[in-house]
Structures are given as structure tokens and as C-alpha cells.
């Protein structure tokens, strides 16, 4: 019996001591093993390195584009010559339909075609499938980020996915809608073939176009003023002959508050009429213009189309929740309330950081003049900041600003639908440029550098001097000890990777894990448990010794009584 009691007393003592010991030591840092991450190569290996080189295809001179994922040169050749004027071999490399871009008739006799027909289709990205619990065709704007989206896409031929085994979208099906380039005076027909399951239209914002065409009907794209919605399976021709040049905007004007944000928006640029001005009619994926117009080549060394866009996660999820078009229509048209919505994804040329580094770098050399055309197709004002540079605003909304009054800035505020043409000069004078480097260009509303609130993301990219380009044509940052690999994992944007875990050897700001320490709640309940156990033991002890206790009690009482009696 005494050993039993001894053990019973020892147990609570050990428990108590362990509780107090646990409370004195904080949990150890848990470092996420890089092996546990789904790491992507920083540069997509799918691209043939020869795509980056300066080259000539079908007689079309294509500038070098020293970035990780440059445009397919065959796309550029087809866009410059027209799909009707290139060899079948080149056409097969584009994936375009043979009637996607038709260029004929040099009407003004200046050496370039003046009748331009562009066929656009409307494609869905990242929409629900009734066959498997996933989305199709997939398009990632950042690692693991696949918002439901719609795009105008150049008319293509064949499958919408890479192949039958893959669910990844064909490279022609991507955000943003392609940049369209035509000349002043061209007779342009944009043929919209509505391959989507919803009604749509095209509104040519800023482009000189007639309100109605004698043959093709209403041309303004507005179902409340100029035309009825273009139904699925139908085709409509938008014809114009622009008299003024400028950086303009085209978008769907059906249920604009949702359709525009879904991605049905792109840049359309009217170039000055010049002799032998074979334009790159489509800049698929926007970005670097590898065959600039005659007018741009006269004044600039390089040209970039920068399309800023913003998307609401909840809006995109509607096409991932339902497959039935009636339910999608109901949720988008009647239930979605844009006045209660927030934008979650900020993109530059259809992608968010770090993917912007793959194809939307502005690669410069000292003493260059670079033309940047900017469009904001998001729903809010943005403020684009160029690190290390002040650029000159030459055009607002496609109209040239008085050259004498032109100003230089380093933050460019852009209202929704606004376009700015900038002249970026890489002259190291402390004003135009502070010198060579890997200079950030980003939206200075701080949410603009996040993806669904997770930094670093959003529409940020870089103005990179060639001396700062590293392996696979990504910005060279490793010599500063910078490792960008963590951004190329979906776990980072799932908020599962501690951002600062690799800043020092012992991960002082890593994850504390749940580890050894006990929670406050369990600690108190354990202490109560120990108290209960002790009192239980005490009761047992009292019970087992009750006879002797009563004897002692009686003895004391009688003694007291006796003493009382003796007093009397």
C-alpha cells in the first residue's frame, strides 16, 4: 500500500513539472523544405531560344527580343504579311486560321496593303467542365493562379488546348486580347465570330469609326444605342477607315461591367500613314513590338505595348462554379454586384509577377528612346511608377499633347480606359535615367503589387538594362544574393510559404510551427486535472482512515468536554 500511494503522488508531480517546463520554452522554427514546393523553372523551357534572335521570316524583319518568352516569330511574320500572303509552312507554325488576317489592295499606291480584315473569336479560359472537377482550358496568370476569363483571340485553327492530352490553353488563347495595329486610311474590317456561349460585341473606344455602316449596320457595339447583341454562333463586321492616329482601346460593350473585367478588352493602335508601312497587325500577348511602324522607327529605338488590367476573383469564379450558361448568366447579370466588388488580380499584358519577368520586361540599352503605349483597362485609377527614370508624356488618349507643354513624370496616373504614350529616354543624366540597373516599373497603389493581396505579385515588371540580364534572359539579381525562385511556386501564392524564412541561416522569421509548447487552454485544463486527482486521493485517504479519524475526533471532543467539565 505505501508504494501505491507513493506512485500516485509522484504522477501528478511529474505532470505538473512537465506543464511548467513546456510553458517556459517557445516552439521551434519550422523551415519549409524546398523539396516540398512545386517549383517551376523561372524561364519556361517550352520556348525555342532561336525565337529571341533578330531574324527575317517571309521577308519580314523581326527585332531581337532578349526575354525569356518572346513572341513566336511566325506570329509576327503572319501579322505583318497577313495570313493570306505567307507560306503554308509559316502559317502552320502560327496555329492561326488561314483567314485570320487578310491583307490586300494597295489603294493609295504607297507600297503597303490598305484593305485589312482581322477575324477575332471569343474564347473562354479557366471555365468549368462537366466531365471532371477541374477547369479548361487552363491559363495561369501567376503560379497556380487561374482566374476564369474571356478573351478576344485571333481566329485560329485546330484544338483549343495544346493537345488532346493537355488541358493547357493553346498559346494563341491567352490574356490579354491581342493588340491591333492598323494605319490611318486603311479600310479595316474587324470580323467578330462569336464562338462564345454568350452574346458579345466590339466597341472601338477612341477609334474614328462610323456610328452605322450602310452594309454592316450599327458599329458602336452598344446594345442600347447602335445594335443588338451578337449572339453565339453569329458573325458581325465592324468596318472603319480611321482619319486620326493614336493609341486606342477596344472592348465588348455587352454587360460591360462584367465582360470588360473578364478580359474582353484590348489595345488598338492607329499608326500614321507612311509609305511601305507594313504593320504588325496583331501583337499577340502585347508587350515588345518586334516590327514597329515606319513612324515609330523614325523617332524611337524600341516600342512596347503595356496593357494594365484588373480582375475580380469572385467574378471569375462564376464560370468555374456553373457549367449551365443560364446559371452563369443569372449569377453575372443579376447576382453579381460590382458596387460591392473588389479587384484581386492586377496584370500587365495578361500576367502577374513573377510571370511578367518572363515576357514583359522592358529591355533597354543606354541612350535609347523607347516608346511605351499604356492602357488601363481595370476598373480603378492606377499610378504607374518607373524606378530610376522620368518619362515624357507625349499623348493622352491617342491625341498628341502640345510638344511645348509636354511634361516629365515618374508616376503616371491613368483613369479607367485611359491611354498614355510615353517617351522613355535612357540617358544617364540624373533626370531621364539614373543609370543602368534592373529598375522596377509598377503600379504604386500598393495593392497593385499584390496577387489576391499577396505580395510580391500584381502588375509589376522591370526596366532592365542589358548589362543586368542574366541566365535565360531573366533579370540578373543573384549577385545581390537575391533568389526569385520562391515566387515560382504555387505554395507562395497559396500563402503557405513564410516569405522571410530564407533571410538568415536560422530562419529567425520563419514559421513557428505548433511543436513542443502547450497551448494556454490545455495547460490550465491539465492543472485542473491535477488538482482534481489530488483531491480525489485526499478523499480516498480520508475514507480509508475514517475509523482512526473518528476515534481521534471523538477523543478530542471528549477531551474538550472533559476539560470543560473540569473547569466547572
Amino acid at each position, binding site marked *: 500500500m505505501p508504494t501505491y500511494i507513493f506512485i500516485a503522488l509522484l504522477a501528478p508531480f511529474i505532470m505538473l513539472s512537465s506543464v511548467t517546463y513546456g510553458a517556459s520554452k517557445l516552439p521551434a522554427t519550422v523551415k519549409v523544405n524546398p523539396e516540398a514546393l512545386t517549383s517551376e523553372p523561372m524561364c519556361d523551357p517550352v520556348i525555342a531560344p532561336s525565337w529571341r534572335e533578330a531574324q527575317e521570316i517571309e521577308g519580314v524583319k523581326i527585332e531581337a527580343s532578349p526575354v525569356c518568352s518572346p513572341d513566336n516569330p511566325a506570329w509576327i511574320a503572319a501579322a505583318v504579311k497577313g495570313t493570306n500572303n505567307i507560306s*503554308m509552312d509559316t502559317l502552320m507554325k502560327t496555329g492561326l486560321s488561314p*483567314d485570320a488576317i487578310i491583307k490586300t489592295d494597295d489603294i493609295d499606291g504607297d507600297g503597303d496593303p490598305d484593305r485589312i480584315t482581322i477575324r477575332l473569336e471569343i474564347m473562354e479560359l479557366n471555365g468549368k467542365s462537366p466531365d471532371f472537377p477541374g477547369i479548361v482550358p487552363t491559363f495561369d496568370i501567376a503560379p497556380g493562379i487561374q482566374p476564369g476569363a474571356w478573351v478576344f483571340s485571333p481566329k485560329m485553327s485546330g484544338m483549343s488546348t495544346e493537345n488532346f492530352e493537355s488541358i493547357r490553353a493553346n498559346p494563341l488563347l491567352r490574356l490579354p486580347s491581342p493588340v491591333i495595329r492598323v494605319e490611318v486610311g486603311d479600310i479595316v474590317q474587324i470580323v467578330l465570330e462569336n464562338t462564345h456561349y454568350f452574346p458579345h460585341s466590339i466597341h472601338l473606344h477612341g477609334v474614328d469609326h462610323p456610328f452605322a455602316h450602310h452594309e454592316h449596320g450599327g458599329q458602336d457595339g452598344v446594345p442600347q444605342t447602335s445594335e443588338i447583341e451578337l449572339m453565339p454562333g453569329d458573325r458581325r463586321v465592324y468596318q472603319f477607315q480611321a482619319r486620326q492616329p493614336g493609341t486606342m482601346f477596344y472592348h465588348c460593350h455587352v454587360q460591360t461591367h462584367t465582360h470588360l473585367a473578364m478580359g474582353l478588352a484590348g489595345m488598338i493602335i492607329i499608326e500614321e500613314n507612311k509609305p511601305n508601312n507594313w504593320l504588325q497587325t496583331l501583337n499577340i500577348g502585347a508587350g515588345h513590338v518586334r516590327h514597329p511602324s515606319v513612324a515609330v522607327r523614325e523617332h524611337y529605338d524600341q516600342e512596347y505595348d503595356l496593357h494594365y488590367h484588373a480582375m475580380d476573383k469572385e467574378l471569375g469564379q462564376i464560370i468555374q462554379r456553373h*457549367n449551365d450558361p443560364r446559371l452563369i448568366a443569372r449569377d453575372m447579370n443579376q447576382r453579381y454586384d460590382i458596387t460591392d466588388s473588389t479587384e484581386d488580380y492586377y496584370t500587365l499584358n495578361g500576367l502577374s509577377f513573377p510571370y511578367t519577368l518572363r515576357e514583359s520586361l522592358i529591355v533597354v540599352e543606354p541612350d535609347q528612346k523607347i516608346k511605351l503605349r499604356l492602357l488601363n483597362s481595370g476598373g480603378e485609377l492606377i499610378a504607374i511608377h518607373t524606378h530610376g527614370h522620368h518619362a515624357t508624356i507625349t499623348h493622352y488618349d491617342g491625341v498628341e499633347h502640345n510638344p511645348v507643354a509636354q511634361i516629365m513624370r515618374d508616376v503616371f496616373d491613368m483613369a479607367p480606359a485611359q491611354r498614355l504614350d510615353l517617351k522613355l529616354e535612357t540617358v544617364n543624366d540624373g533626370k531621364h535615367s539614373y543609370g543602368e540597373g534592373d529598375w522596377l516599373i509598377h503600379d504604386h497603389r500598393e495593392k497593385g503589387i499584390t496577387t489576391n493581396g499577396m505580395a510580391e505579385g500584381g502588375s509589376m515588371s522591370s526596366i532592365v538594362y542589358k548589362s543586368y540580364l542574366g541566365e535565360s534572359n531573366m533579370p540578373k539579381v543573384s549577385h545581390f544574393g537575391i533568389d526569385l525562385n520562391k515566387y515560382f511556386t504555387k505554395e507562395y501564392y497559396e500563402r503557405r510559404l513564410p516569405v522571410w524564412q530564407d533571410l538568415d541561416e536560422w530562419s529567425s522569421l520563419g514559421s513557428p510551427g505548433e511543436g513542443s509548447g502547450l497551448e494556454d487552454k490545455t495547460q490550465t485544463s491539465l492543472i485542473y486535472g491535477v488538482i482534481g486527482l489530488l483531491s480525489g486521493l485526499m478523499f480516498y485517504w480520508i475514507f480509508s482512515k475514517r475509523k482512526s479519524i473518528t476515534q481521534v475526533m471523538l477523543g478530542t471532543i471528549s477531551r474538550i468536554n472533559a476539560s470543560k467539565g473540569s473547569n466547572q
Partner: protein
Amino acid sequence: MNRNILSLLIAGALTASIYAVAQPKDTINDEHAHHDHSNHSIEQHKEQPTDQNQDHSHHNEHQHSSDHAISHEHDHAMDHSQHTTHSPEHSVSGADDHHHHHMDHDHIMDHEGTMIMGQNFDKLPSSCQSISEEVEITVRAGRKYSAKFPGTAFAFDQQQWKVKPCSKITWHFVNEDNIRHQFMMHGLPKYLYKLGMFHLEVTGPKTVSGTMIVPGKDETFLVHCDISHHMEKGMKAQLVVGKGGTDIPSIPGLTPYNLTDTYEAENLPKVGDKVESSKMVRQITQFTSDNLQTYGMMLIGILLGLLCIPFIKGILKLRKKTENNN
């Protein structure tokens, strides 16, 4: 009372589900008539009087069997003069000279993107000794065919075709929309068909035709349009060879969807709302409909109470008796 309502509901649900189960069967039965597209053919010819490509040499090569499946085609052999069928030597459209035509063994494309891929006139699958029958099937594609399947946007006119093993099929793919559509078949033997695919593609309104030979065993092949979300939104069918294999899922009206959307009642305006536009009437109906359950229960209570009166009376009498006895 509630139980009655419940059983009624269950009975209703049962009949509805039986109806739902029966529906696909009906459609399958309809399929038996699918070879009879003599009317279609005439229609089609009238629609395309300007088609320049009147190549019927190919048809003359056909040894039409007397099988009922193509007998109608046979009857209308004279119409073939205006058929848009294309032999391998003649591409889909011979009209334009300044445009390119891509031609290799299994890939033909014209200047408008009309495409035939994986065509096969004579190479027998290893499972076949000879061609069992030669069939011509007209497939129509368009938005209008989705009308009979609520919740879809595009469809083929038929969702299923049945042929004998080792059949040689000439497909006439009639796109009636003003956009691109595809007739794409997957899962064919890869030693005969590149990537196991037979593929017709055309921007409508226009027809493209292509010929292929199916393998010799019972199998079911997926047929769809691969333009983004055309299959998901209804443009999906199957080719059943012989007795067929496993059904392809989510073919409108034919096979169940793997994943279905959830539907809920919506507060849509009804004509009835207008009829009862008087505020008073509306309030009263609203009130009664809201309180129907309460009043119903009250009524049941009253009835129970009335029924209980004799018993209460009896009890009271008994009590009096016992009191008297005491």
C-alpha cells in the same frame, strides 16, 4: 396529414425520375431514324446552290450496299451532282487560285481554314478483314440544335450514330452557324490515324466531307467540337461501333453528366402577381398563405377537441359515480 403530403411528393419525384430515366431511351430510339436524312440532303443541296465544287466522281466509286442505312442515300444518287463531298485529290474548295492549299497525306486545309485531318479511304484496321459496309452520314452543327437541350449553347443535330464494325464512313459535316465548328473523333487506332484523331473543321455556313474506316471491335468513340467550351456547352456526341463500349459521359439528352450544377428556385415575377395587384387581396393572400399551417393545426385541434367531448363526458360521469359510491 403531413405523411400524406410526403408520400404524394415521393410518388411525384419517382414518376419524374422514371420519366428522366426514360428520356434518354426515347432519344436513343430516335437515333434509329438517323440514317434517314434524305430530307436533309435535299435541304442541304438547296441551301448551297452556288457551291462550285461539284465533284461526284468520288461517289461513283462507292459500291453502295443495299443496307437500309444508306439506301436513302442511294435513292438520291442523282443529287450527288451538287454534293460537297471531296475526294483526296480535290481539296475542300477549288475556287481560289491566289490562296494556298495545304495538302499532305492526312492534312488538307483551304484558304478559309476548312480542314480534313486523318482521312482514310483504304487502310484497313488490323481488326478488319474487309470493309463491312459503306455509309454516308450527314452531321449538322449549330446553335439551333441546342434548343432542345436546355442549359446548352451549341449542339450537333444527332448525339449518337451507330455503325457496323469495319464500316467505311463518309461524314458530311454541315456547319450551319457563322463561326468555326469541328467534328473531331478521338481514340482511333494511332497506327492509322495521327494522334488517334479524325477531324473535320469548317467555318459556316459551309460543308466539309471526309472518309474514314472504323476498327473491327465493339467500341464507342467520342465526337466533339474542341473550340473552347463548345463540348462543355453541348457539342458532344458518340459513334457506336457494333454493340459499342462504355458510353461517353455528359452527352446532352443521352448520357448523364459527371458533374451537375445545382439549381434552386428563383423569385421570378409571375403573371399571377399582376392579377392580384389589389393591395388588399395581396395582403390577405399573403396572410393566409403565411398562416395556413397555423390555422390548419388549429383546425385539427378543434376537431380533436370535439372528438374528445364524449370521452370527457364519460370520465366526468364515472367520477360522479365513484363520488356517489363513496
